[in-house]
């Protein structure tokens, strides 16, 4: 047999077997990928309301466990991508997006939401919601609205954290002050704070204060609705209401005579009111943390006082989850989104494994009815109260520049109320500042 012959025979056998091998492996891989759905979920540790949470990922581990169990027959798997702090999450996640390696599903932080919905990273969920049996009524509507952009749903809420005021009842009692809850306005609030504020040690500077943590946001939203116009391209506040707010804040500022209310003074019984949120309430309002703080006096939650032209409202923190428009398994990803946001069994776990409130109203309802709160030794939290707070809550503007613009506004308002005697210029000043900041390209730097 010549070498040419053997060469030909070798080719006759080798090439077809190579082709068959390639086809088989392609088919094999395709089949494996079809049958094995592995979803990735990006998480941050920490939260937007700044209350430390032990075992931050525990709730998500639980969600994955339950989800995989639920869809065991289909073999869905979810892998968590963790290890990023809340403050670093935005950049970390943006890099994943740029490199095209973003996970199928991810938690969203407020300031990223609008951008990701606008650039098309977030998959629009309307179609999936229409197909599924999920009713919007299941959710607290404000929480659902936080995931909407230009009329479409882009993310679903997992849990919520409403915020409110708490009041030191013992202090007010000792001063014989009574809150008229039916007429809970700035005016009454100011009057109470004025009476609480006092110089106990006689050094000329006040050492007992009306309120801790109250800032312009609380005042603004209880007298007006929106700071920006609908498209977030210019200022959208009402001049008269803004002027009222500035006047009110200037009065409140005047009470303290320039002394800053240090954090922690409320705990020491030296402050009448304090801004608070549900997460803090659950940590410090229940055993064992309640013995560390706020245990020396009687306190209770209270809504924010309303301005002359507004109603009582407070910020609602939510945790939102969305899915990538580039995910290969969008239907499965939506199943997970639906599961984590609405599944009653899982939503119960929100209460067990985190300091948030479940976003599913039925679960919220059953928690109240089951007596779980009493079991956890929690301070009583009136259901009517918390439902009203949630219903009247507002969501922070969620465009990228907002956090920076917010800092500018805070600084300018402080200047106005601390320095200007004539507040009439202040309103125009603020409007101009906001418009300039919004118009300015992208070179915004933190002031």
């Amino acid at each position, binding site marked *: 047999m010549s070498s040419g012959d053997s060469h030909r025979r070798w080719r006759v056998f080798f090439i077809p077997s190579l082709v068959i091998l390639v086809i088989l492996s392609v088919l094999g891989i395709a089949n494996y990928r079809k049958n094995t759905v592995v979803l990735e979920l990006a998480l941050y540790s920490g939260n937007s309301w700044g209350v430390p949470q032990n075992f931050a990922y525990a709730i998500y581990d639980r969600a994955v466990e339950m989800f995989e169990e639920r869809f065991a027959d289909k073999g869905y798997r979810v892998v968590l991508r963790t290890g990023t702090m809340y403050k670093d999450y935005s950049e970390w996640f943006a*890099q994943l*997006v740029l*490199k095209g390696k973003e996970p199928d599903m991810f938690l969203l932080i407020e300031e990223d939401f609008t951008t990701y919905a606008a*650039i*098309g990273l977030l998959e629009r969920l309307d179609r999936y919601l229409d197909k599924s049996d999920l009713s919007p009524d299941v959710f607290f509507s404000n929480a659902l609205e936080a995931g909407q952009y230009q009329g479409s749903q882009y993310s679903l809420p997992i849990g919520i954290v409403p915020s409110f005021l708490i009041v030191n009842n013992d202090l007010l009692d000792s001063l014989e002050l009574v809150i008229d809850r039916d007429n809970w306005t700035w005016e009454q609030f100011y009057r109470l704070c004025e009476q609480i504020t006092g110089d106990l040690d006689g050094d000329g500077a006040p050492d007992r204060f009306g309120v801790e943590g109250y800032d312009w946001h609380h005042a603004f939203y209880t007298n007006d609705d929106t700071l920006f116009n609908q498209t977030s391209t210019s200022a959208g506040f009402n001049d008269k209401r803004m002027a009222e707010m500035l006047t009110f804040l200037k009065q409140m500022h005047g009470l303290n005579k320039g002394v800053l209310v240090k954090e922690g003074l409320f705990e020491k019984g030296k402050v009448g009111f304090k801004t608070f949120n549900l997460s803090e309430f659950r940590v410090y309002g229940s055993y064992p943390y309640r013995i560390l703080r706020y245990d020396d006096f009687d306190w209770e939650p209270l809504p924010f006082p309303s301005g002359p032209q507004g109603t009582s409202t407070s910020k609602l923190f939510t945790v939102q989850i969305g899915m990538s428009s580039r995910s290969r398994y969008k239907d499965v990803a939506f199943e997970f989104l639906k599961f984590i946001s609405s599944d009653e069994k899982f939503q119960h776990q929100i209460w067990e494994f985190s300091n948030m409130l479940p976003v599913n109203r039925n679960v919220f309802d059953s928690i109240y009815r089951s007596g779980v709160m009493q079991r956890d030794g929690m301070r009583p939290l009136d259901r009517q109260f918390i439902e009203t707070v949630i219903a009247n809550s507002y969501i922070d503007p969620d465009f*990228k520049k907002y956090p920076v613009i917010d800092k500018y506004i805070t600084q300018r308002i402080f200047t106005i109320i601390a320095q200007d005697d004539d507040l009439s210029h202040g309103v125009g000043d603020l409007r101009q500042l906001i418009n300039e900041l919004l118009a300015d390209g992208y070179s915004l730097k933190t002031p």
Partner: protein
Amino acid sequence: MDKPLGYVYYTILVLNLAIVSLFSLVMYQTTYLVCDADQARIFLEQARYLPHIPWHVPVYAISSFLLLALSGAVKRRLTESQAIVVFLLFLADIGLTFFIAYNLNFSYKGLFLFLGVGAFFFIANLPLRYLAIALVMLGYIFSDYDIISARLNLVSLQDYISFYGPSAQIPLYSIRSTLESLNLVFVILFFQFLIQSKIRENKEFIKVNNELSDKLHQLEILQVKLEESARLKERNRLAHEIHDILGHSLTSISTGLEACIELSKAGAAELHSRLKKIKSVTDRGLTDIRRSVRELKNDAIVQSSLLSALQELINDANALGDRGVGFIIVGNAVGLEDDEEQTVYRLVQESITNSLRHSGCRYIDVTLTYTEKQLTVCISDNGCGCREVHRHFGLEHIEERIALLGGSVVFDTAPEKGFRTFASIPLRKGRTLE
């Protein structure tokens, strides 16, 4: 297609490959630089749209471009009869180009110019070519970033380049615009070469056309020659026939008659004188036939040259007696074509015969004048001449034959002034002396 045209086409191809590679690699590399600089979130904010997955850009764009080049190579191998296949491939090219443009975020339109050049280069069928060019033009118009971005949500190349500081931006922008301008320059060069090649093709066409009509003319002349040759052949055959059959018969009759005359000498004087008369008629007939045969055959010039044949003719005329025939040659005698020689010979022969028969002249002059381009033949006598020229068959025939050669003949005569025949014949080609 022309070679230079091919070179320009391949230069444009390589240039576009360079541009596509550069743009896609810049987009790829910038993405990672942005991430390294922790500017990813800001970049996404500025971009306004979701960027491509970085590795997709160079891989998709460059491999699609290589497919485009491959399609070009295939199109070159296809023949004109496969115009539909070429056109279908071209449609696929447009699709590929849009895909590349999409991957480059429609930041580069020059690819459509390259495609337009390809339409001229590959598609020979005119209606299909115009359709292809129309499609390419549409592509060129609508592949604009500003038009497309609103619909397809694309990040512009500008956004990528603006990430860099001015020190890197300036060279990047200059390279970009240099390459794009070069592309334009070569596209213009391509069309310049295309137009040139078309002009050259036209010129060649005209040249070939002229050559063809020349050849046709030569063919006509050849036809005439062939006819002449056939006629000569037929005359020879006739001469042989007459000589062999009629001549032989008449010779036999004449010999017989001679015997009869001898026999009749003794007897009947009347019979003798009658037979003598018949004999003389027969002899005259025989002489006529011999002369006729000689005339038919004196296409003697078929074997000998014109000049010696003429000389013989003139010698014969001189031998007749009292009349002198002169023969003069002026210039360098050159060899002539057969038909020319025949014509000149006939002309001289007919003219001499006419002079001998009708003019009652004392002498005849035959002059042949050779110049570079023509031959003039002049036969003149000093006979009685005539008031006007009677164009009997002989003269008309001569006129026709000379006209066939592109020459002319003039007869010049007056009472008591002699007769002069003047013919000029253009020489077809210069010939050396025989």
